[in-house]
């Protein structure tokens, strides 16, 4: 019996908040800690992960997902030069590539689920488009990212709400009346007054009392993790707290606070050098922050040390990860 694949989707409503960079480093860290990891660029139309990994002219890309000649999905996996880390590129996107229909999204999702790995990391595009949200919702562990700016917090809140409502919508896709409440993609046919979880619950209680438990179950099972990027001070961390409060207040969900990454030039330099900063300088502050996030995601305590150009990883499994009495 094989372990189920751990799919981690890294998303966030706003563009340019560091999703791709953090996703790449998470993948590198997990791969270095011994997991077989596949990093996938699902930002169709604006992919850039291959650039962060320094892979020029990738052999396969986004268009190959729909090429009938490719029968073996493993042929799409590109070598990254990092042990245990494979990469599926979204390169080859053309103008309009981001507007693929839901069928093709379904094709890609089925491709992802066929992949053999311990962890698959999905780098999502910005916004709350269903093409993005659907990738987020297939994840076993969703990670939402934000930066301390108010605009980013607003967008992340919208992203979480969209993901939750999309999840509810997909759970009740056979109930058109419920779809009107939870799917606001068609404003003319939708009940626009249920825009918070509380309002949704009361609507369900009034109109669909039989589905209330299922609704509550979906809501309670939706526990994305939060990473605050580009933190400069304690005030910035308060911004992350505010997002948690906001989500708690209006969506009634528990967002797990995974950690933060400080603002640092090392991160920017690593992008220029096309090397994940965790590998380039594992003992830097951003790398330490990232190790804490990986530890929170994998229930392990990781410590990376670089000596003489070689990286050494010490890994300790937390007792709470299934060994508690």
């Amino acid at each position: 019996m094989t372990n189920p694949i751990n799919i981690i989707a890294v998303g966030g409503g706003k563009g340019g908040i560091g999703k791709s960079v953090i996703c790449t480093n998470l993948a590198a860290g997990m791969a270095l800690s011994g997991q077989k990891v596949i990093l996938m660029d699902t930002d169709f139309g604006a992919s850039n992960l291959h650039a962060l990994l320094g892979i020029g002219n990738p052999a396969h890309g986004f268009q190959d997902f729909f090429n009938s000649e490719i029968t073996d999905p493993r042929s799409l996996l590109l070598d990254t030069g990092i042990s245990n880390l494979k990469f599926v590129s979204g390169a080859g996107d053309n103008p309009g590539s981001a507007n693929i229909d839901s069928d093709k999204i379904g094709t890609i999702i089925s491709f992802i689920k066929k992949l053999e790995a311990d962890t698959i990391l999905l780098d999502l595009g910005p916004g709350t488009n269903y093409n993005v949200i659907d990738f987020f919702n297939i994840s076993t562990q969703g990670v939402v990212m934000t930066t301390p700016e108010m605009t980013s917090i607003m967008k992340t809140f919208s992203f979480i709400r969209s993901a939750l409502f999309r999840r509810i919508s997909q759970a009740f896709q056979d109930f058109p009346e419920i779809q009107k409440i939870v799917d606001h993609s068609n404003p003319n046919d939708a009940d626009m007054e249920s825009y918070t979880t509380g309002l949704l619950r009361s609507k369900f209680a009034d109109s669909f009392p039989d589905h209330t438990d299922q609704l509550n179950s979906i809501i309670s099972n939706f526990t994305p993790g939060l990473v605050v990027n580009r933190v400069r001070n304690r005030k910035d961390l308060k911004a992350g707290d505010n997002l948690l409060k906001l989500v708690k207040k209006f969506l009634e969900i528990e967002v797990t606070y995974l950690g933060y990454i400080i603002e640092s030039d090392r991160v920017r330099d690593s992008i220029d050098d096309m090397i994940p900063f965790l590998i380039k300088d594992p003992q830097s502050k951003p790398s330490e922050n990232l190790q804490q996030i990986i530890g929170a995601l994998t229930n392990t305590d990781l410590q990376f040390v670089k000596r003489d150009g070689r990286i050494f990883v010490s890994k300790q499994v937390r007792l709470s990860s299934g060994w508690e009495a």
Partner: protein
Amino acid sequence: MTEQLLQTALDFFKEIWFQLNSRFDLENTEAFIFLKPYLIQLQDNPLYMGISLAALFLVPYGMIKIRSISKAREQKLDELMEEMEDEEEYDEDDPRRLRQPEPELNEMDDDLAKPLFGNGETTSDIEDQDEIIITDEDLEAELDEFELEPSDTSADEEDSNLESSAEPVSSLLTESEFDKDLNEFMTEELDWEKEETSTVEELSQDDSSHDQAIKELQEEGELMELEDTLPTNDPFANYSELDEDEQDKAIKDLQDEMERTISQLTQQIEEPSEVPSSIKDLSQIHIGGDATIDEGYISEEEEEYFLEDPAEKTPAVETPEIQNKEPSLPIESSDTPISELSDEEILASLEPELKAPASDEIPDTHDYEPETAGFTFEPESDIPQNEAESFVFEPEPTSLEDTGHTSIPNEPEASYPEQTDSLIDRLKFLQTRFENRYQPLEPMSSPAPVEKKVLDYESLAEPRRYTRASVPPDSKKYMDLLESFIFMKDQKKHK
């Protein structure tokens, strides 16, 4: 590149702040909470930011500048004091100078010559350049400017040269000029008008800075004296706190004092013939010499240079006969290259004549005769050699005699202009005190500008409300703001 550097610096500071803040929790300290709104305002307004940065750099710069200025002034004062002491030492009439050993002066000459000129040619070039013929008009203008009171030219000429020898830069020039003048005595017909002019020019050039600085010092001294004359329990220091009777008494005293000062001043003004003004003195020089000029100058000189050692000074100026003999120096050294002689040598040659006629000291003067080999100066003289040798220097007897006779008895009269100035200053001072009797003179209520500054700050802080200051993320206002951005106006049903 610059942006990168700035960004790096910014990141560095951010990093430092973040580390400090995370370790010491600086944001929750009372000081930071107090300063936070101001810092935010500074951050928001580039004007304040600029002002604060400017203040940050300018205030220490100003402090340093003030300190450096005061140090420079102190140094200048010290230099002046040293010069004054040196001048005392080098005074030709000072017996101590005559007793000074010869090698020291030679050494000093060498030291003075070294840094400026490598050889004698350069010196002689400069000598030529410095030969300036000054007309009477120029002289008047210059004297007016510096308010000098020249006296006996031949006697004071050497003084001025000796005085300036204390300054390394000007010493050679003045010395060469000194030599040049002595050569002129030998070779040319004595033109007293020209001689006087050039001497006065030298005086004005060499001593102008000294005189000005000394004047400043004197003025300062007068001011200090004025301040010293203030009673220790000054009723005007806390005038507003006094009773009415005490206030009346204080005003009455002040008025009395003012009246006294005015009467003294009037008395001074009513005696104009006895109060020689500097301009008057100068005009008198060209007329042909007046006793008052020399008196004024000599008495002033005495005050300036011989205050500390009057006992040694007196024998030097005691008889006019001795001074009359001074110009006879060229006779002895007419066949000697005087331009090569040092001051001390020249003065040493005067020694037997200044002192009692002791024949055993005379041969000292003949030691200079063999030094003719190095002499390069060729005097443009029409005077035959034998005539030059037999020439006996006879300056205008009136000025010299008058100088000798009148300097001591008329000394108090010379201080009249100073007294007048002092009285005027005192009157002004008393008037100021009377006008500012409700305000203490020294502490001019320093809180006033500070208060103004605060008011300005408040008035400037007002418009900043339009810029919408950032809301702290840990405040309820922030959450309300966030909610207002997320939800629309009609979406207020959310709990």
